[in-house]
């Protein structure tokens, strides 16, 4: 048996969160806590922190209505450095904690900060379920393709053959593609960006925050101690242009430097391939449509990522509207109260306790 849950209200991710009053404004400093930041020198996390601290004031929200929840790992120290409400929880469980918080507090902007080990190894189950439920939270997945806090073991995004402390002969684990995983888990907003590209990072974060539902942003982040240079191929300005595929909604999917640009086309067998720009026709060219209901093209785009980073799509893969879990949960509470003639108070509680089958014992006559 199933029932229609009703149409969702069209809201943004933050539209139920109280905003600052007229003339009020916050600055990066307001979001900077008094705690000394303790990441290794050169860690990519610094750049992401600075970007988030710099970008949060733009949302115009009241600071007390923002909550960052993290798990365990280097990136999960993030909440300590932000002067908002925050919880540094336990390994892999942040999405479940954030789900409970978001379901009971529509007035909060809830963020999850996690890493490749936290989100994809120990917390893989919670991640996929938060995504499929479409809880109104924003998940920042810092992917450095290594375990940093435990000092350098391979992670679920490390490439096959990776030599680490725990894989002296090379890792035999097939890595996850986090974008493919998120799309397979029915995620409604999926994006990828990079720690060193402040402008792109900020732009993606804004879209993620404004999306109502679960947003996941994979952030390539360099670990200078245990996996330095993992993303060098796409950070180097000379090589970057040839390797990055910038996904722009409504535009053809292209890569390569000027003069050698290639366009993504659909082959006769349905597969996707890059061909020289001039060889692409209007019929075969794949135009990027992040809002497409069917996630299969977004999935195909996610598969363009090569392990050696020779080819990496960046940007928003998917952004679609779907009723959020927390909205539906609250709507059922409201509906239950409405159909019963209002929320239950003490009188209704008394009725509940009595049930339908009571008997009365009179006081014994003395």
């Amino acid at each position: 048996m199933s029932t229609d849950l009703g149409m969702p209200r069209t809201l943004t991710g933050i539209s139920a969160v109280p905003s600052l009053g007229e003339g009020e404004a916050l600055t990066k400093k307001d979001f900077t806590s008094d705690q000394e930041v303790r990441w290794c020198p050169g860690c990519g996390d610094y750049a992401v922190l600075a970007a988030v601290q710099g970008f949060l004031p733009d949302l115009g929200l009241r600071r007390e209505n923002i909550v960052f929840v993290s798990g365990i790992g280097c990136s999960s120290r993030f909440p300590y450095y932000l002067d908002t409400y925050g919880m540094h929880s336990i390994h892999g469980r942040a999405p479940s904690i954030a789900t409970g918080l978001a379901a009971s507090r529509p007035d909060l902007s809830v963020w999850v900060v996690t890493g490749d080990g936290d989100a994809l190894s120990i917390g893989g189950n919670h991640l996929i379920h938060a995504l499929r439920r479409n809880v109104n939270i924003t998940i920042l997945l810092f992917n450095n393709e290594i375990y940093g806090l435990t000092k350098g073991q391979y992670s679920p995004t490390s490439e096959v053959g990776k030599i680490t402390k725990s894989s002296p002969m090379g890792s035999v684990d097939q890595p996850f593609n986090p974008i493919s995983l998120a799309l397979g888990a029915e995620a409604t907003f999926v994006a990828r960006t990079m720690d060193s590209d402040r402008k792109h990072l900020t732009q993606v974060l804004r879209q993620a925050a404004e999306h109502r539902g679960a947003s996941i942003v994979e952030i390539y982040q360099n670990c200078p101690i245990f996996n330095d240079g993992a993303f060098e191929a796409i950070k180097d300005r000379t090589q970057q242009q040839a390797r990055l595929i910038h996904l722009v909604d409504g535009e053809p999917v292209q890569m390569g430097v000027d003069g050698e640009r290639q366009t993504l086309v659909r082959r006769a067998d349905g597969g996707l391939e890059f061909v020289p720009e001039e060889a692409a026709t209007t019929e075969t060219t794949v135009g990027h449509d992040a809002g497409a209901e069917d996630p299969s093209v977004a999935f195909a785009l996610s598969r363009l990522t090569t392990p050696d980073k020779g080819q990496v799509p960046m940007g928003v893969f998917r952004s679609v509207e779907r009723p959020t879990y927390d909205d539906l949960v609250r709507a059922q509470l409201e509906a239950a109260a409405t159909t019963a003639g209002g929320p239950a108070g003490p009188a209704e509680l008394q009725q509940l306790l009595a049930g339908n089958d009571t008997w009365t014992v009179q006081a014994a006559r003395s």
Partner: protein
Amino acid sequence: MTEKSIEQIDRVVIRFAGDSGDGMQLTGDRFTSETAALGNDLSTLPNFPAEIRAPQGTLPGVSSFQLHFADHDVLTPGDAPDVLVAMNPAALKANLRDLPRGATVIVNTDEFTKRNLAKVGYDSSPLEDGTLESWHVHAVPLTSITVEALADFEGLSRKDKERAKNMFALGLLSWMYHRPTTGTEAFLATKFGSKPEVLAANLAALKAGLHYGETTEDFAVSYEIAPAVMPAGTYRNITGNTALAYGLVAAAQRAGLPLVLGSYPITPASDILHTLSGLKRHGVTTLQAEDEIAGIGMALGASFGGALGVTTTSGPGVALKSETIGLAVSLELPLVIVDVQRGGPSTGLPTKTEQADLLQAMFGRNGESPVPIVAAQSPADCFAAAIDAVRIATTYRTPVFLLSDGYLANGSEPWAIPDVADLPDLTVQFATRPNGVDAKGREVFQPYARDEDTLARPWAVPGTPGLEHRVGGIEKANITGHISYDPDNHDHMTRLRASKVAGVEVPDLEVDDPSGDADVLVLGWGSTYGPIAAATRSARNAGVRVARAHLRHLNPFPANTGEVLRRYQRVLVPEMNLGQLSLLLRAAYLVDVRPITQVRGLPFTTVELADAITAAAKEVSS
């Protein structure tokens, strides 16, 4: 029609037994409601297999429901049935060993076919080979009489008609014990409202059962049991899981907090999730999580946001939740963890009762991780126990274990419905303003500054301006809550958390000792309350002087516990485990308490405990 005699009796124990698909739980439930409506005191014990439908007619598929009712107060579901209703050979074989010689057996002879007898290893029919000669047997072709009674229902298949045989049995028993059937008629009308023919057939089967008792020579006597003398009040019958769910809802309302349950289905706790998911109008949010860990994570997230976070589970689920319970200890946020215990280890006996999670609740986490523990003692008492667990969680900002078990969860008893206005006021004060000053003299919020009396820290919920703060599982500096690896601070914080839990206010242990000079004390906790009380009553009736006390709080223990233990020459501690409370008592008070243990998946019988008490009293006096 011959005139039939009516006997007055003071108590009876009836067990309905049949195949899992025979509707024995429903039959038992209905008979219980009829009995409750007559004003008898009662106690019930459902007993069913973990398999939803084990192969039909086999021993593993037997499901039973035992009901003890009387004209006086009833403390247990009864050691042994006086009457067994056996719907098939498997039900007879599985239950016969519990039946004292001379007891009554009503068997459904239609099911005693060669094939069914072979399924359970009977070479010949026990109805014919003398197996049952020590019992008073009523051989009734229940199935065929039911089908015959429903001959006019042309729209129903034979199978549908056979299905109504449990109503025939209920009708027959209702005649035997003068139970009113109007409640059952109303119940059936609701259940089968959309299927008028099925409703009519069930009602006809029920009537046929009543008439069968009235007219058949085989049933010469019927019985009356006068209402019990109970304290004045309005009563209902209630199971432990329902009472527990209602207790949580009532406590949340008295605390002024929304209730948020994060839970993953598990036997025997799932009915709490089911009940609460139907109470949305009462502001109850239920989140069915992807696993046990997420269930408690959701509850803890909700608590951080200012709700009453609750998670419900059984022992295997607690094992998975341990790390998050440790986090809640560190965060010092209110959280209620309900453990409806079942047989263990591992999957153990999912549908059978046990009390073997006490040490898991007490110690099952890494590090020094103290958690208060509250235990319910009877099905109806689950209501009050839940309220007390919420009181401790919100007052002391701590996770709290609420222990129930399979016996309490599914068992039922009459409950004097409390007046909501008389329930304790659990109003919670959230932090609203800064509570300290920093080195530069600025007003700041100190998340780990504590209340002097309770040692509780402030509960500052997101959305409160000026109180932005971070909490986490890493050790925190006292008062400021900042990350701290300082050795002295960790030592201090560990002791603070321990002191806070040790200082939870719990009432003194009350001792029941009518003679005032007993040498033997029986001390129990949780669902052994009924069997212990019944056993001490029985021993006292036999002239044994024995005192009795029961622990509601297992952590911390009541302040007078040590003094009470030392007052007696011999302390007996019955538990459905291998001596877990005994271990704690010995460690805490250096008193050589004597465990009485069994883990058969069933409550203690009155007789076994009474014998142990009598033996101990003899030993002490000689």
